[in-house]
């Protein structure tokens, strides 16, 4: 099916929370606009307290904005049941009825989504094994670990085969294996034609996975775009790893200034500004009896871009 407009569009969303009876409410979201298109993986990035969870709650009608509009699948978010059936949502640090087993919980979710019993059963088995919880199907959720909760959260979000999957911090609280599995699941969703919108405060998780990112800071959007556009082709520096750690006089003889690097155990790490310099250094190093173990151009990451933009937005924030 070819879709014209965006699947999710957020227009000029603002939200404040009251802080007390007398005090001024705090602004959590200011004039946030963004879009998610069909079959994209979009990362929603920002440090803790940026307003990611608040935005995601608004998308799921768990909170209501002071101003602005959310449009899902081209219609208003308030459309209710039909729209909800096409969305899967996993909250931040999900928590479930501890008196149920994982299987019972998914059965409840299936009923609420209007799925048939047989459908629910087969989807549950499939998803539980996909998230690595097959063995815990009949275990009371009371006995689940935090990581298992997270996995069950993912399973319930995907149970009714939604077109748009919204995940709040799906990777936090998981071990490296778990994070890798979640990344795999998100990639599979894209391959199956779904759209994924997920938040994270860990930039490296997002960099490798997303088609596009939206960066949020203090409730304002600071950057939006395709990952490769944001990162660009720009090389920050070239990192050389050399063995052994050459003494200062031999480095000088190789034409390398003393502040160009640092020793890391038995290795010497050098940062060359560009390819020409790296090549001159390598020639000098080889002449002086060093071995170049690796030579890697280091690109500007989302982290650097984020820090740049946040620095900029902070200074404008101070004047406004």
């Amino acid at each position, binding site marked *: 099916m070819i879709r014209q407009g965006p699947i999710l569009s957020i227009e000029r969303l603002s939200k404040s*929370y009251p802080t007390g009876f007398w005090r001024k409410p705090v602004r959590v979201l200011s004039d946030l606009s963004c879009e998610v298109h069909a079959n994209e993986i979009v990362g929603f990035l920002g440090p803790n307290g940026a307003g990611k969870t608040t935005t995601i*709650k608004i998308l*799921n*009608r*768990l*909170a*209501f904005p002071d101003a602005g509009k959310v449009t899902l699948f081209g219609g208003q978010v308030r459309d*209710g*049941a*039909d729209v*909800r*059936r096409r*969305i899967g*949502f996993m*909250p931040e*640090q*999900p*928590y*479930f*009825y501890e*008196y*149920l087993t994982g299987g019972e919980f998914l059965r*409840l*979710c299936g*009923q*609420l*989504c*209007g799925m048939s019993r047989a459908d629910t059963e087969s989807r549950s088995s499939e998803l539980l094994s996909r998230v690595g919880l097959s063995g815990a199907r009949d275990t009371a959720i009371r006995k689940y670990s935090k990581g298992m909760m997270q996995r069950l959260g993912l399973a*319930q979000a995907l149970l009714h085969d939604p077109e748009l999957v919204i995940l709040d911090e799906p990777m936090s609280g998981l071990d490296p294996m778990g994070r890798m599995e979640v990344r795999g699941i998100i990639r599979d969703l894209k391959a199956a034609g779904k759209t994924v919108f997920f938040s994270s405060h860990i930039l490296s998780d997002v960099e490798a996975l997303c088609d596009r990112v939206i960066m949020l800071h203090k409730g304002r959007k600071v950057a939006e775009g395709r990952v490769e556009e944001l990162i660009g082709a720009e090389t920050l520096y070239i990192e050389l790893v050399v063995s052994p750690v050459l003494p200062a006089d031999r480095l000088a003889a190789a034409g390398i200034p003393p502040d160009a690097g640092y020793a890391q155990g038995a290795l010497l790490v050098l940062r060359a500004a560009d390819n020409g310099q790296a090549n001159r250094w390598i020639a000098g190093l080889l002449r002086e009896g060093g071995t170049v173990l690796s030579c890697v151009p280091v690109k500007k990451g989302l982290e650097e871009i984020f820090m740049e933009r946040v620095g900029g937005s902070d200074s404008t924030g101070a004047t406004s």
Partner: protein
Amino acid sequence: MLRRIFSIAANTFRETIRNKILYAILAFALFVIGMTFFLADLSVGDFARIIADVGLASIHIFGVIMAVFLGITLVSNEVERKTIYILLSKPVRRFEFIFGKTLGLSVTLLLTTLAMATVLFLVHFSYRYGGRAEVGIFIASAGIYMELVLLTCLASLFSTFTTPVLSAIFTLSLFLVGHLTKYLYVLGDQSKVEAVRWASRFIFYLLPNLENFNWKNEVAYGGLKSFSILGWAAGYLVAYAACVLCLSCLLFARKDFK
């Protein structure tokens, strides 16, 4: 819509019957009601009357304890533990959630009331009391049950916007006042000032009149004259509960979850 309400009700029912504290209260209640068996040894006079009075009063008190204990956390627990995030992100509307929760707890209370009434019935039926099958126990218990459902609706109303402790205080206050409203009416009517009379009548109709569900005396003094009183009470329950639930839904409709 109905299917979703029933699913939530079934889940709430499961939640409450897997609650160990409820079992403790129920076990104690059944024990106390069972002990009326020995009242015959201690008291003189109309044994059957005493057992009906003490037994039905026990069912009433323990029923209220259970309704309030479960009702005050009915909604707030889900909000606190964020389990409601999952439910409301599904195709579930907020009023369906409120109705389902209340319905589920009503079913639990039906079973516990039935269990207590059955124990009392059996004690009454035993040889010591002449082996009379006193159906009135069940009729009076039906009235108690209707009252419990109304209290559950009130508790869940408070549970949508305040803490469990405050919900308990509000619900228990309404329980006490609800049994005294007719005195309010009588007292107010004696006033010389018309405004006071009107105000007292207004409050009388506003507050739940829980005496509408009280047939303990009729049952103890030789049975109900007519069953129309039951129908009237059921009608009152439906109308009042509907108003309370609608108010809950209104308060809940635009609530932001933390």
